[in-house]
């Protein structure tokens, strides 16, 4: 019996979403088996995960808080991936965004007491600029020198982390602790609980303005990718760079712009995280949002709308990590989901054919010629 993969000539419209769902289901089954193997009860674990992330309006709000940076970093990845630019540096761009925003109040670049209406947009711009700059580096290196962006973006993640550590251990350290002083209240993004006074139901809800950034950004990225001329060019380059060049598109320039926008989105995520929920700068602000974003973008098939949904799913998993012991379980589930997703991607493009009956024989009628020729005559014997 042999198993063959054959390219599909046609892909039904339902196939891709169906396979995505199937991949997640298979991942949950595999994860469940592993949980059972170590003596846990998978069903109870899953119920607990769902309960602790969607079970009440309070935890749902917490899930959305975790989803916020994932939406923005997921969009950053999806945008770059559309052009086959493998930006795996969203983590570093996120950190740089957080740093850039923090610099506004910590350096400080503005006088104390600047009102939020000025301060917050300023910090947004600073965060996006810092993240965008971090994206520009691999963009320019790839466009000019054809340097592999995967390596560069990956390495820049560590540089960004070290950069933040330098600042929180050094110049911005608060009393020798590895974190900055808290941001002034004006710099905090408004959250629902701030309005509990007028709407009592909002009491205790942590969802902040960053979620709105994410949703608006998803809309803008969608408009950009699906409706704009630039988006058309990105699709063309992503599918066939040679065709794009033939159509008169300057690929290098597009590449730099996309990398910058991608970095700016991740930078905005960093800003939203420090301004919306952490309120000071430290080196542990990200539990790997920028890496999870890669899975989010993949799960969403690089579609901005679906990024929002996938980000909420993964936000729930991150949140559940606090509830589940050992806390590695959600991380494992994430990893297995990525694995099954990549496998399912193959199935979108190929169909599996199982052929029964063995082939006549691997080695058909042939003269028994040795694989290696008889040792060539030694020179001595020849002469």
């Amino acid at each position, binding site marked *: 019996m042999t198993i063959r993969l054959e390219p599909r*000539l046609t892909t039904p419209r339902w196939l891709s979403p169906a396979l995505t769902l199937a991949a997640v289901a298979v991942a949950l089954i595999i994860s469940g088996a592993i949980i059972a193997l170590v003596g846990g009860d998978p069903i109870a674990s899953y119920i607990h995960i769902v309960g602790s992330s969607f079970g009440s309006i309070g935890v749902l709000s917490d899930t959305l808080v975790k989803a916020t940076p994932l939406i923005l970093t997921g969009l950053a990845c999806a945008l770059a991936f559309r052009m086959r630019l493998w930006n795996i540096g969203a983590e570093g761009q996120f950190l740089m965004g957080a740093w850039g925003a923090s610099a506004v109040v910590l350096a400080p670049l503005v006088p104390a007491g600047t009102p939020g209406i000025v301060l917050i947009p300023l910090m947004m711009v600073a965060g996006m600029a810092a993240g965008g700059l971090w994206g520009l580096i691999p963009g320019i290196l790839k466009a000019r020198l054809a340097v592999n962006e995967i390596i560069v973006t990956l390495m820049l993640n560590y540089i960004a982390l070290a950069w933040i550590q330098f600042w929180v251990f050094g110049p911005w350290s608060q009393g020798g602790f590895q974190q900055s002083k808290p941001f002034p209240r004006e710099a905090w993004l408004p959250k629902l609980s701030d309005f509990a006074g007028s709407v009592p139901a909002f009491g205790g809800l942590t969802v902040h303005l960053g979620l709105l950034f994410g949703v608006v950004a998803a809309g803008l990225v969608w408009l950009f990718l699906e409706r704009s*001329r630039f988006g058309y060019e990105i699709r*063309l380059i992503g599918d066939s760079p040679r065709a794009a060049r*033939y*159509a008169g598109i300057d690929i290098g320039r597009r590449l730099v712009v996309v990398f910058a926008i991608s970095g700016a989105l991740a930078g905005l995520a960093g800003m939203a995280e420090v301004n919306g929920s952490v309120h000071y700068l430290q080196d542990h602000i990200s539990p790997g949002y920028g890496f999870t974003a890669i899975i989010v973008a993949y799960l969403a098939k690089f579609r901005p709308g679906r990024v929002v949904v996938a980000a909420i799913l993964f936000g729930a998993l991150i949140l559940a990590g606090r509830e589940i012991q050992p806390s590695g379980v959600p991380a494992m589930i994430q990893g297995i989901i990525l694995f099954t997703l990549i496998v399912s991607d193959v199935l979108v493009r190929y169909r599996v054919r199982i052929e029964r009956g063995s082939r006549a024989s691997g080695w058909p009628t042939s003269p028994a010629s040795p694989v290696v020729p008889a040792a060539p005559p030694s020179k001595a014997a*020849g002469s």
Partner: protein
Amino acid sequence: MTDPIQPETEPPGRPVTGAGATATGAPPAAAPTPASPLAVEARGIVKAFPGVLANDRVDFDLRPGEVHALLGENGAGKSTLMNILAGLYRPDAGQLLVDGRPVTFDSPRDAISAGLGMVHQHFTLVPSQTVTENILLGLDRPRFLLHERRSEAEVAALAERFGMIVDPRVRVWQLSVGQQQRVEILKMLYRGARILILDEPTAVLAPQEADELFATLRSMTAAGRSVVFISHKLGEVLAIADRVTVMRRGRVTAAGLPTAGATKADLARLMVGRSVLESLDRPPSVPGEVVLTIHGVSATNDRGLPALRGVDLEVRAGEIVGIAAVAGNGQSELAEVVTGLRSCTGDIRVGGTPVANRSTATVLRQGVAHVPEDRTEVGSAPNLSLTDNLIMKRYRDAPVARGWLVDDDAARTFADDLRETYRIAAPSVETEVRLLSGGNLQRAILAREIETKPGLLVAVQPTRGLDVGAIESVHRLLIDLRSKGAAIVLISEELDEILALADRVEVMYEGRFVGSFPAAEAEIGRIGLLMTGGSDDEQAVVVGADDPEAWPAATDGDPG
């Protein structure tokens, strides 16, 4: 002279016992396996690909100890046939015999174990590994530990036996293309190949390297091994081959012709032939202003070797200039320098505006349209919709563009119109173009290009791989465009096509124009000869014939 059975024919699989065996003292080889004197025989091979019958009941035979050339234009089916022999493809019908025994190959491994090895045009070597490591790669033996010294000695001895100079310890990336080819050949010999198939081996070689290759091939045939030599260069074929089989459009037009006595002119005629192309109503050409001027243009190919060597050309509005050349003689590069896809030296003007070395976008704005050679990767984006592909040259302009947005409705209307007008058979304009047939895809590309109302169209191999109906519709579109006053450069390896369409034929060989014929005076035999490196006034001068030993290959059997 052309005795079919070489004196040194020997039982399969056994290497000669030293080249030192005296020429006269060769044992009077008791006629080996009397049933079949043939090393390989292919009977009635049929192989179809979607839309193309690549091999149509092809017969081919190879005698032990001969070099058998397989001659034909691109797309004639040579490579398909050889890929079948090498176990890469399975024939739809027909039979293969090796040493008289029927065989079926499921993989190249099967073929190699039957003694057939193929060296492809594109090498399959690992650059960072040494020659020996590359040769051992994929073998069952040695099983676990490499006896590097021993293997190196084996490789060196094998190389020396066939007059190849290769250091087995050098890493492949350090080797020249010619040396890498030797490694490929060694790889096959090391695996016990008695029959070597070389796919256009000289295409990548400098002339001197080609001579060295020929010497190697001769020492191999002298040792009783056989060689199939795929080529479309007549001079070489006459220089190295004992016999030649000519293919054309999937069929054999001459089987096993002895090269002794054959002339280039004969072969050229067999190769380019004449087929029945629907005759087109073609209004007489009314050439107008000069649209394209090319002056002293030189360029290199992707490997950095000179591809164009000081080319001059003028094309007027309302005329089709056909460029006849065998693949790899600079015509693809010519199309690319004109359309801004390749840099060059020299001067190119379209409507008086210099376009050489300008961006593709600039060239597009000068009204230059391009039907590229590679329609699935360059001419279209395979996984995007028909609409997306049709607006490729229009999305910057109204009505498809609306400010910085693409107006989806306008784009769809535009695409629908084109689909209607050019009868592009697609379920809808949302269909991904990789699902279109070759003919429909090409019509879509032509539709898109023609709709830019070009002053100049550069069409490269516009009908390659298309069926007769699609060919005709493409031809009609080109003639209509000419009637509308566009200048057209038609680059094709199909001489029929050029003769059917062109108002003037320019022949290109090795990066230069070597002949120019008004349509009325274009004569297929002369053009074929020029295309393949013959000169206009000589009929049968053989390249390399100055070396009397060059041909035929094995006279006395001892390479000495």
